[in-house]
């Protein structure tokens, strides 16, 4: 008959404790997400809220070898401050291009892109960098956290490019960490976080410089449904708490259904829904 040693018994107990702790943490996170969701449901954008994004007859043509690809065709739209907008459409429909033009990562071939009153086509590379740093915050599908920096420092990176003082940055990251539920993870390395935590961290990073607009490209594309729902709840909470405009590019109908408005793209054109 095998008799377990005291060490083995202790190890077994600790493993069981770890598993239970993880389950408990997950349950707490779900409850928190549910609370966020309930709070978000109550947020409504005022009808007279100022227009923060304006696109007028925006076209974007790429050269692909000798061929010209019309990624966007005369797209016009306006988005008000605090709105939560989902941009949907099939792959290659132009939704990401639209997001990049709004984010000042690219310039239109034709038409006007104005964000927070700034006409992006007229901005120099340096001013566009400042615009991206101060006015918009990007959230990517693959999070793109720096693997060799602790979460605290990762969140500070946009502040570094803004020459923000370290003390101010640290205070702001702590505040944001609480907002995204990662206050106990600030000393951790990205590899020690789950996918959902990493995306929440990326959102906190995007919020560091108090942007007017959050631009999220498939933010739930790399997450399971529970974490995906949590992220959308978080976006809702952010626009509620900070009045930030949130634009999410997504394939996910559930995500789109949570938005105030859905802009559907097809073959570079905006479909009127």
């Amino acid at each position, binding site marked *: 008959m095998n008799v377990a040693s005291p060490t083995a018994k202790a190890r077994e107990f600790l493993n069981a404790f770890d598993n239970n702790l993880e389950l408990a943490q997950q349950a707490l996170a779900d409850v928190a997400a549910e609370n966020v969701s309930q709070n978000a449901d109550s947020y409504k954008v005022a009808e007279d809220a100022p227009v923060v994004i304006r696109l007028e007859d925006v076209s974007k043509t790429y050269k692909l070898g000798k061929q010209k690809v019309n990624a966007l065709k005369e797209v016009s739209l306006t988005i008000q401050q605090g709105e939560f907008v989902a941009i949907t459409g099939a792959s290659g429909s132009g939704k990401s291009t639209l997001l*990049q033009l709004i*984010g000042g*990562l*690219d310039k239109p071939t034709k038409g006007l892109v104005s964000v927070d009153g700034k006409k992006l086509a007229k901005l120099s*590379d*340096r001013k566009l*960098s*400042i615009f*991206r*740093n*101060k006015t918009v*915050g*990007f959230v*990517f*599908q*693959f999070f*793109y956290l*720096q*693997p*060799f*920096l602790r979460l605290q*420092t990762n969140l500070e*990176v*946009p502040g*570094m*490019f*803004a*020459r923000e003082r*370290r003390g101010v940055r640290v205070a702001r990251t702590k505040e944001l960490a609480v907002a995204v539920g990662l206050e106990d993870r600030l000393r951790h390395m990205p590899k020690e976080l789950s996918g959902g935590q990493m995306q929440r961290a990326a959102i906190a*990073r*995007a919020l560091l*410089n108090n942007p007017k607009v959050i631009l999220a490209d498939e933010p739930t594309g790399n997450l399971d449904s529970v974490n995906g729902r949590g992220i959308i709840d978080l976006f809702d909470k952010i626009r509620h708490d900070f009045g930030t405009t949130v634009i999410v590019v997504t394939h996910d109908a559930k995500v789109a259904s949570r938005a105030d408005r859905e802009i559907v793209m097809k073959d570079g054109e905006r479909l009127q829904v």
Partner: protein
Amino acid sequence: MIRLSDASKLALTKVKTRKIRLVVTTVIAGLLLSGLSAASFVMRGAFSSVQSFSKEGLGERYIVQAVTQGALDSQSNPELNKRAVAIHQELVARKKAEAKRLGIEYDAATDPPPVEEILGSIPKQTFLNPEHPAARQALKENLAIHPLPGRADLEKLAAPYQANGYYQKKSLILGQSNPILKVMKDGKEPLEQDNTQQQFGPPIGTDSFTQSWSLISQDMLKPFTLPDSSYAVGEDGSLPVLAPYSAVEQLLGLKPLSSNAKPPERLERIKAVRAGAPNLKFQVCQRNSASLELVNSAVRVQQEIEQNKNNKEYQRPSLQYGLPKDPCGAVPIIRDVRTPEEKTLADKQEQFDSLFGTEAPAQSIVSFRVIGVLPEPPAFGASVVTGLVSSLVGSSLGYQSYWFTPIELEESTPALKQNFSGDINMMNPYENSPFVEFPSADLAKQFIDKENCNPDFGNISISTGSVGAPGDDPFAECAKQGKVFQLIPYGSNSLALESVKNGFGKFFRVAALVVAIIAAIIMIGTVGRIIADSRRETAVFRAIGAKKFDIAQIYVLYTIILSVLICLFAVVVGYGLSQFIEGRYASEFTLQALVAYNAQDLTKTFKLFAFHGPDMIYLLGLTLFAGLISALFPLLRNLRRNPIRDMRDEN
């Protein structure tokens, strides 16, 4: 613009990626540069040690030897050759007449001509034998008309350069008519050459006396003279002499150490030699050529008799000389069974020889007293280290084993006058050249640079009776410019060391530049890879607000970190290498330097390590330069890329 501290934080994350590549790059580039850092540590250490040792001997004195050209140059003078031949022919004619008068035989072929043909030369070439009596006579006559430049000329030339001392040297002339001097061992005269000391190279130890006993100005001897020694002739008649190290060792009865002897053992020996040297006395047997010939004849006949003791047909010579009974004594006749006719003939021959300059046998003992020990060049087959130290550093009065007596004693000492007041040394003009001393290396250099004759030997053959056109004189151009001496730094390599030091500085800079270029090529691989790998991250940084300049700053800082790592590695490895060299060779160098500089303080050490800040700063600067060059093109390429495409590509 991003703050430096933040840029450094982000740059450090790059160091953590591609660690193996980073380590390989650091090691390879670092090893390349480590050679340079080691060279700097070792050479600067050596220079600093040389500087410390050069306070000994003639190391801090700037003496220049002024070599005259005239004596050798005279050989290419056809008139001189003709005169020598005429003197010879006249002598032969007189000898023939005298031989006829005395009724003895004389074969003119036993007197070779002063101008001889160079065997195998095409077209036929001849040379004037400077040892030939007729040649010497012709040269003497020539020099009386065209005297060689001497001390007065040197003083005139050197005065504008603030020269503060003039010295003279005279060497024994080896010739048929000059006496042979042999150091007596244990009170006995060595009757045969002792070949056991050294098989190759010039003689060392006491055997070197005959070839290298010289007179030199007392001022030049001072640094090598033992404390409390007198330059005067002793009450017992002993002449003061500075002897080479190996000779003192031999005179003290010390068996030479093996070439494998360890430095501590050799240091002990130096101490023993130094301790035993003061007032060490020895005697020299001086024989003229006639006396030496009798000794040699006695030795030869004795050997013949020994070899033929069982040969009944062997007949001993009718006149037999025996070995001297007293040390350095006259050679006695031990058997004379010559017929009256033979005796008459011998008397006539003696009369004939005496008429034509052959001296009667003469020998005498000269006493010496050691007043200093001179460093000497390493023996043939000595270690590389020994040779290196001796050739690079050191302070000596000659380039072989030398014995020196103050020249100031010559006039008042018959033994010196007899040996040194003969003909000028035509074989080696260096031996009797005057010296001039300057107060600084700069003045000595200026003097050499401006007044040195650099003869053009390109147009001249070994000379001959037929050669001698004015255009062939290699010194003609110098003479026109009033440059009558070849000027050579003497006594120490202090001037050469200044050049070596400057040369090393230049070499270090050029070598470092070459190595930096190679290092840059190696670094391009790593830096380029890191930048290429970070395209997505760069795109993300751009999306969240980084300017192009911020990105450039991060990678420049990364390159600086990499360069500093490489430089640190190079310095650490270089330090290790230099410590190895220091451990392996420093004691040997110390020993050689103690000997070469004739250091009075035997506790001095020769270090092969010194930290030279400017070299290290230069090395770091070049490594940084190499790093920045390596980052330039990948970075420019990276900054021109479209961040959107980079984010998509990596997905």
